[in-house]
């Protein structure tokens, strides 16, 4: 009995120490990537190649999801607002919720599962097949050559993808409420423009998506680089990337929102 209590306390302690140790390792790795990233700006072609795989190939899922999220927002917003006779405010509802929250968050979640998992699997498999070790043998730094370009490609792509998601969502909302349902076109846009502020709403949304881009790609490259070099290890690392980034995105979103929109209506 007593042994069992001690063992369970030990298990908690072990998990905690393990977690802190991994966090420290990840932070050191992150600083290491930043220090080594001068090469990726000198050889920008490497980053461009990665932007293609990370950004351009994520476009379809981002644009289609954005369109449907906007359409659903428009439909639901209209249903509720028309009870109060203020259906012309549906433009404001769609634009504000997309610009402030849904655009950056949904785009980052999709980005984590579409591109973050791919980055982890690619780097993990490179490690499992000893490609990274081979690079080291040839005096090519794998962090500078493989990790840093992928990191910067993600950081550059994320705000652009989030902006496209938001624009597509607003278009979807416009499509449903103005074109299909018949809300007045002029009041849809003018109410939106009256209530969406450039500095408070749009710039803050872009800042959010920049934070998410750094978080998602940092987690993805770390998990890939840290993955045990086995098939099981790579699959576990890929799963962890998606789970951890999703949780980090949502937690970070709450923190950023409470800093940005406190007291500003």
């Amino acid at each position: 009995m007593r042994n069992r209590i001690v063992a369970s306390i030990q298990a908690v302690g072990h998990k905690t120490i393990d977690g802190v140790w991994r966090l420290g390792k990840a932070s050191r790795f992150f600083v290491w990537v930043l220090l080594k990233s001068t090469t990726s700006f000198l050889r920008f072609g490497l980053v461009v190649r990665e932007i293609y795989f990370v950004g351009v190939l994520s476009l379809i899922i981002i644009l289609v999801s954005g369109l449907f999220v906007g359409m659903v927002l428009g439909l639901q917003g209209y249903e509720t607002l028309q009870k109060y006779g203020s259906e012309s405010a549906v433009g404001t509802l769609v634009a504000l919720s997309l610009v402030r929250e849904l655009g950056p968050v949904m785009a980052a979640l999709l980005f984590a599962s579409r591109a973050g998992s791919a980055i982890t699997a690619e780097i993990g498999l490179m490690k499992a097949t000893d490609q990274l070790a081979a690079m080291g043998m040839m005096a090519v730094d794998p962090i500078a050559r493989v990790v840093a370009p992928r990191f910067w490609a993600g950081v550059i792509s994320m705000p652009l993808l989030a902006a496209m998601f938001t624009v597509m969502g607003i278009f979807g909302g416009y499509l449903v409420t103005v074109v299909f349902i018949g809300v007045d076109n002029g009041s849809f846009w003018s109410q939106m423009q009256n209530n969406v502020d450039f500095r408070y709403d749009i710039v803050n949304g872009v800042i959010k998506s920049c934070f998410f881009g750094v978080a998602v790609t940092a987690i993805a490259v770390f998990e890939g680089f840290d993955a045990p070099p086995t098939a099981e290890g790579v699959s576990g690392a890929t799963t962890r990337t998606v789970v951890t980034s999703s949780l980090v995105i949502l937690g970070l979103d709450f923190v950023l929102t409470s800093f940005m929109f406190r007291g500003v209506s």
Partner: protein
Amino acid sequence: MSRTVMDFWVGLFVMAGIGALLILGLKVGNLTSYNAGEVYNLTGNFENIGGLKIRAPVKSAGVVVGRVLDIRFSLETYDAVVTMGINSAYQFPKDTFASILTSGLLGEQYIGLSPGGDDVMLTDGDKIMKTNSAMVLEEMIGRFLFDKASEN
């Protein structure tokens, strides 16, 4: 995939992203309508501002002519000092009347300016002397009950 094709798609992607940001700024946000032109500041003391907020519109005859920049509580007069940024294209006479109004039944509150007939115009930093506070429902009900009681 060849390098040039990849460059093309990445270029297109980046341009589309920047285009999306531009659309957000120009079509969705109020970047064009709001920062255009110079503004001059006017202040006004209100007994009660109700639910007026910073960035609320200042309207004259229903046209937005400026925005509320700042709201403070004055310790000298014990009332609210509201600073408004008015577009320089619009000039108002010295005896302009400023009142806090509500758009619609549940709408936001804004400041309405009704121009007077004075020849002298308000300039930057001037104070609007004639103000009318926001209507507060509790005060109205209280006054109504008081009147009813004094009738009997």
